[in-house]
């Protein structure tokens, strides 16, 4: 058993989520007889933990499998292999966490209880809301499904949470339709919908990437503030390291379905260990005209992860690759220094 990324920030013995060896393959449709001609290894053996109230960033290029991890975590997709276990605070409210639950076993009523604890904020504030339902309907839906309160209580509750996410006066937003709101306002509604059940974990899939510069910061600080106030843990998915820096306690860098580096945020940004992290960091533009940045030492482009060769996924593009890298399997994610994990033979 390889060591799992531990976590210094966790205050309880048991982390909120523990993901172990998560794998998700998508079949690539073959041509003639519809037999899959191969598999996209979208997520390929990902393990991590998220502590209570912690915010873990998941960073990587487009197509590296970030959204897939998020969807697996909230059970919108079922994993090909691997396990996810959750350990929520006991419903009775005392501090001792209950026994860990294996996500794979959840069905029916227990799945509905699970939905109360784990929520998702979608990337696209335009598509993730039913255009024919009002803001009130959208936010009250989780309450209605979970049978919390009656219709009138819900109006008050929704008004309350709208105020909380900064849509004031709430009464003027309650009965509007999504298309009557701007992108930023919609994303606030999406946040309200995710938080109205007071979940323990929120998976946020690039919540600001489709927003305008000016609303982006507002949403980021709102999410940060709410996380602190409500003790919510985030899995914060983004491709923007600068955003991750402001939102996350720790960052996991993904490359072609694998986590290649995981560390505390400032540590990772200041002293990246993995060659991919270094390339990624050196490609981020800096808003300072005097700053001169060296080109990232990386060649080629990301290949589609269709049945990739068994060696290091980064081998083809890696500036430090050696013959060990070529002949060995993908390097395991190892603890190279306290709290710093990297998957590379050359670190």
């Amino acid at each position, binding site marked *: 058993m390889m060591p799992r990324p531990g976590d210094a920030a966790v205050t309880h013995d048991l982390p909120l989520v523990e993901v172990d060896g998560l794998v998700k393959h998508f079949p690539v449709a073959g041509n003639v007889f519809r037999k899959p001609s191969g598999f996209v290894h979208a997520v390929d053996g990902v393990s991590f933990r998220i502590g209570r109230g912690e915010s873990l960033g998941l960073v990587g290029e487009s197509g590296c499998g970030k959204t897939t991890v998020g969807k697996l975590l*909230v059970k919108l997709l079922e994993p090909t292999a691997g396990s996810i276990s959750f350990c929520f605070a006991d419903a009775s*409210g005392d501090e001792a966490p209950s026994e860990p639950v294996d996500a794979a076993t959840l069905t029916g009523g227990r799945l509905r*209880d699970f939905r109360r604890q784990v*929520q*998702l904020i979608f990337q696209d504030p*335009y598509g993730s809301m*039913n255009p024919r339902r009002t803001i009130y309907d959208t936010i009250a839906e989780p309450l209605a499904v979970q049978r919390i*309160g009656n219709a*009138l209580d819900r109006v008050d509750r929704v008004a309350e949470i709208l105020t909380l996410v900064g849509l004031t006066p709430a009464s003027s937003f309650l009965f509007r339709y999504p298309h009557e709101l701007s992108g930023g306002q919609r994303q606030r509604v999406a946040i309200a919908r995710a938080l109205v059940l007071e979940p323990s974990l929120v998976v946020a899939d690039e919540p600001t990437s489709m927003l305008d510069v000016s609303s982006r910061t507002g949403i980021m600080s709102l999410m940060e503030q709410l996380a602190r106030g*409500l003790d919510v843990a985030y899995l914060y998915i983004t491709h923007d390291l600068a955003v991750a820096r402001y939102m996350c306690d720790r960052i996991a860098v993904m490359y072609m379905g694998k986590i290649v580096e995981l560390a505390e945020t400032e540590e990772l940004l200041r002293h990246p260990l993995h060659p991919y992290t270094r390339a990624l960091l050196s490609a981020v533009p800096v808003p300072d005209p005097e700053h001169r940045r060296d080109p990232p030492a990386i060649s080629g482009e990301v290949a589609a992860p269709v049945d990739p060769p068994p060696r290091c996924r980064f081998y083809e593009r890696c500036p430090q690759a050696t013959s060990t890298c070529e002949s060995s399997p993908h390097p395991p994610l190892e603890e190279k220094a306290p709290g710093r994990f990297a998957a590379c033979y050359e670190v």
Partner: protein
Amino acid sequence: MRWSRSKGSLLPDASAGPPRVEPGGGRLRLLHARTRLVLRSFRNGAAVFLESRIGLLALVIIVLFAVMALSHPVLMGTVWDADIYDPVTGYAFDATEQPAPPSWKHPLGTDPLGRDVLSQLLFSTGSEFVLGITAALVTVAIATTVGAVSAYYGGLVDAFFMRLADLIIALPSISLLIVLSGLFDLSLFYLALVIGVLGGFGGTAIVLKSQALSIKVRPFIDAARMTGGGQFRIIFVHIVPNLLPLSLLYMMFTVTSAIFAEAVLSFLGLLDIRMSWGIMIHTANTGGYLLSGTRYWWLVLPAGASITFLCSAFYLAGRALDEVVNPRLSRRDG
């Protein structure tokens, strides 16, 4: 209510005091807001609908026919004597020969059996509306459900309904109706049901299913799953309402085809109906008056024109609704 868990509430004062519900007024307020919303979206839709000339024209024609339908019972109750003017059993004793050409007492003349043509025409208008609208409602109810269900579940369910639809489309529906009406005594209501069922499981279901498929992959369906809602809720609360605009459009087209199918079957004398536009033409035909050119125009022209106008009006209304449903100048932002 148990919103505030151990970790504390969202708002500092949320746990303090009861929820703010104005006694008695709250539910009304909610209802009021909803009504306003429905009215507003109706007003917006109506504005776009009427902006197109076609829509306005169609509406005028339909209203005209509706007035005609309503005027029949009124006329029968006031100025028309049932013995003379009843559309089925009446007889124009005042005319010397039947069919009689238009006169003051019989503005559209009488038919070969001495019955008043105007009375027949007005009486039938009501039946046509009942027929068309019943068939359309049945079609839309079935097609929407079938479309949403087969799009959502896919697999075997989908395969079953789609093959069924293919089968119904492959069979020429008029000849199927002819066979059915030969086997059973089809009254107006059953005819409406049969047309509705055939349309509902047939082509309309396929159209609505492909629309439902594109709705199913939209992120808000995943968002609905995230709330923990069951499949029933996702289908009927999230997919179906987004299908309704398109359903409405097909409803209009179904009215057209139902009226048309009725006319054909009546003309062939296959229906167990007292009176209809189709039967009027049928009567003229069996008397051999159809072949005598324009001399007995009042036997054919009023009914034929009515069929044409009402069918086209509903069709055009459908086209105008299309503008409301898919406005080319989309007012959505982004």
